[in-house]
């Protein structure tokens, strides 16, 4: 195939087709690194799903008992911790009583991180046992959710400190998931939001509102559940950024606000990297079409 121009050197499009992929890696790295170094931020406009999540938490009466399940581990924390932080702050600001738990082993540590960096930072007046409780991780995947749908004390006999649930005012009378007004699963896969839909929502469809935050990978799997079975859904870091905007507008904080803005920080690199990818896809296709047409002409 002759892909040379008249002077004998390869044409730009021909060279583009044979470019070393490491140049693309470098360009992608720079497109992500530079916005971080330059602290590029772009305005976010909350979409319907982020608004629905926000409204679901707002619609629950003040002081309600809510459950936040940290169903992920550090591998997905980049996407999910920003929305988890914003949700914890939102629930606490609204006056809800928060019960933390995890279906993933390391979810407990991430919940502890959210408690330390958000709950106790912005709401230091909250008391353990009456305003929030950490139940931690239980092995059993969907079995945990299924048992909680009918009998929470059988699944969780104590909190993470070994205190029996009966001695913690917030959860002393807790019987089943129906005793929560809202359940949120911040989910990275199995077990996660889908298991909460299958085993908790199906068991008590009208008893509580169910919202979720999801990694980008599993969004298409969860979308069919919205809005009938899921009252709200935060779609990856984009959903986190939109939700952060809504939370910050209504419940601003005076210091350390960056802890509630990680999603928006990560949207800067997203934009530049996506523009680069779109440009590369367009260029690649032009090079392919040009190569084909040259081949056809010969």
């Amino acid at each position, binding site marked *: 195939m002759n892909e040379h121009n008249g002077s004998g050197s390869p044409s730009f499009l021909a060279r583009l087709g044979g470019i070393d992929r*490491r140049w693309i*890696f470098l360009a*992608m*790295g720079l497109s*992500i*690194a530079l916005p*971080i*170094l330059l*602290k590029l931020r772009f305005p976010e406009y909350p979409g319907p799903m982020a608004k629905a999540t926000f409204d679901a938490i707002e619609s629950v009466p003040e002081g309600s008992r809510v459950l936040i399940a940290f169903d992920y581990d550090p*591998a997905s*924390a*980049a*996407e999910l911790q920003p929305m988890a932080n914003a949700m914890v702050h939102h629930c606490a600001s609204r006056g809800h009583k928060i019960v933390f738990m995890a279906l993933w*082993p390391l979810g407990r540590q991430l919940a502890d991180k959210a408690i330390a960096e958000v709950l106790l930072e912005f709401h230091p007046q909250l008391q353990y046992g009456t305003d929030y409780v950490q139940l931690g*991780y*239980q*092995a059993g995947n*969907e*079995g945990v959710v*299924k048992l909680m749908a009918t009998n929470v004390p059988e699944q969780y*006999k*104590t909190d993470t*400190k*070994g205190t*029996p649930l009966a001695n913690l005012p917030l959860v002393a009378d807790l019987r089943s998931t129906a005793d929560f007004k809202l359940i949120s699963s911040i989910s990275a896969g199995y077990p996660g939001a889908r298991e909460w*839909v*299958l*085993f908790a*929502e*199906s068991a008590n469809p009208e008893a509580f509102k169910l919202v979720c935050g999801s*990694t*980008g*990978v599993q*969004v*298409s799997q969860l979308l*069919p*559940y919205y809005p*009938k*079975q899921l009252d709200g859904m935060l*779609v*990856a*870091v*984009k959903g986190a950024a939109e939700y952060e905007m809504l939370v910050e507008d209504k419940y601003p904080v005076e210091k350390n606000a960056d802890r509630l803005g990680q999603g928006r*920080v*990560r949207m800067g*690199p*997203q934009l530049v*990297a*996506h523009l680069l*990818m779109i440009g590369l896809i367009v260029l690649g296709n032009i090079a392919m079409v040009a190569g084909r047409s040259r081949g056809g002409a010969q």
Partner: protein
Amino acid sequence: MNHPEPNQPTTHGRGRRSYRLLWISLAVLGFSMVALRTAVAAQSGEGNPAAARDLWTTVGVWCAAFMTLGILSFLYKDNPFYKVCESILIGVSAAYWMVNGFWSTLVPNLFGKLVPGFVRSVALPDLPVSATPGLDMALAFVPLALGFMLLWRLAPRGGWIAVWPLAFIIGTTAGMRLVASIEADLLAQTVATVRPLVVFDQATSAFNFWGTVGAIVSVVGVLCVLTYFFFSVEHKGVVGGTARLGIWFLMITFGSAFGLTVMGRITLLAQRFEFLFRDWMGIA
């Protein structure tokens, strides 16, 4: 035998030079970071997260930074630094899951019921006291026996014994998920699809154009994709056209799923860069 030309570097020689170049680059990068970090820490003082850390946190941050760079170095080419980081990652992950399974499942759920007093005295002082310890102990022998049967496949003879606990696991999981899936996936999704094609706003009773478009696309999409997977009729004529439209819906779905996956991967890389710039280098 084919000998390389005297003035042409061998593949082996090129590889060694590339590795040398990579090691030199990493060393230069490391020393640059030390200098930069020291300078930044001296200037910014306590306000900088990279400054004023205790020794072990600093060691942890440096380990994490070199692991991150080691894994990313694969993008240039396969190299020993990457191999070391990859092996550490796999080893630590496997060990973590084993230890986690032992302490979160076996100890509280099995040993804690078979010998609760012993477990409480040596491992888990907070192990809840059961109201029916005898019954718990008797029931715990069931998973204990199934566990031993499962491990029997490692024995030279009687591998068929492991099939029974496997059948138990598959049967209970299928039974548990079957009902929930029929309820949440089949029935609820069918109900969600059966809806008015013309949508009016609930509050104002005004015609909702985009809601109507969404409802029509949703119903048409479901029918077309179902037709594509319906193989009892040959895909010709109207059925063929509908199936082809179903393929378009599937392609769009896969494309959006891929786009979301890319978004997730970019976020992961952004978070790693944030870590390197802020926690390690202290420049962002």
